[in-house]
């Protein structure tokens, strides 16, 4: 699969991935629509997200057919971001703890919803933990 001549592949694979991306997006939306909460929500949303991202990069952007030298250049550097994400979440949790413990912030504050503000009688969806 010499990429110097360009990436030519049968159309069928594009249609299949296209449909798959629709289905996965539908699943992601269904997670919200059926109000799946907690750890299951995170697991499902992140799984569908990585599957979609993987198929877009691999098939639509042709990464599976590229040589490893190019693939490493594309996917290698962004992996260091995992360290940044790890550091920032540790630091973030520490900061949040300090604010609760020493600045007297309310641990049980609840967000308002558009229904609360526009004076409608609506169920309270704001108790989502973050």
């Amino acid at each position: 699969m010499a990429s110097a001549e360009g990436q030519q592949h049968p159309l069928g694979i594009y249609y299949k991935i296209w449909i798959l991306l629709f289905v996965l997006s539908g699943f992601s939306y269904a997670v919200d629509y059926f109000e799946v909460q907690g750890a299951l929500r995170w697991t499902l949303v992140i799984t569908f997200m990585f599957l979609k991202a993987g198929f877009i990069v691999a098939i639509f952007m042709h990464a599976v057919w590229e040589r490893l030298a190019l693939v490493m250049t594309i996917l290698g550097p962004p992996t260091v971001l995992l360290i940044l994400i790890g550091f920032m979440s540790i630091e973030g949790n520490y900061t949040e703890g300090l604010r609760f413990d020493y600045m007297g912030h309310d641990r049980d504050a609840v967000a308002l919803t558009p229904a609360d503000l526009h004076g409608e009688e609506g169920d309270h969806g704001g108790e989502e933990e973050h």
Partner: protein
Amino acid sequence: MSEATASHEGITGLVDDWAADKQAYHVPWGKAMMWIFLVSDTFIFSCFLVGYLNVRITTTQPWPPQSEIFALSFGGDPIPLILIAIMTFILITSSGTMALAVNFGYRKDKAKTFWLICATAAFGASFVGMQAFEWTKLIVDEGVRPWGNPFGAPQFGSVFFMVTGFHGLHVSAGVIYLMWVALRVKRGYYDDKGFEIVEIAGLYWHFVDLVWVFIFAFFYLL
């Protein structure tokens, strides 16, 4: 390009390609450059998203309920997150038409390539239109500002305008880029040069879709 013929695959190929004094990437230079630009753009978007992660963890005020804020009513009860779902599907559709455009480009089918790129650009433009509608609704009806909002943590507004705004800018730039490529395809500018440019433009477009996958998950769903 002439002396540097790719030989081995896999790990051996990786070492071969890097170890000798020769061309490392066996792709047209424009494509290698586009990939490197996209890697740098990945870092920009990642900085925004990691910044979002940090403010979302550190804020002690409750995070506004996205599902309800981005709900839209078509006469009846508001449907949660429906506009965002439609925008997601539109962007995936445009990614599909772009993938087909790349394929027909390499087949030198200029008419199909032209119309598929135009369709991609049209979907992109409608995405930006919906985003403008979403921003208007949030600013005018819900009173969300970059420095505060009536629902909860003020960081919600700054993250929202920053991240979706920067992404929308990418989509808008992509629409202009695609129209430019489409016109040149139609005029026969690439007949002798080859149609790699369609694939390069496609890489950019798929990247914009890719970023939206992450924004959709982290900002709207979680």
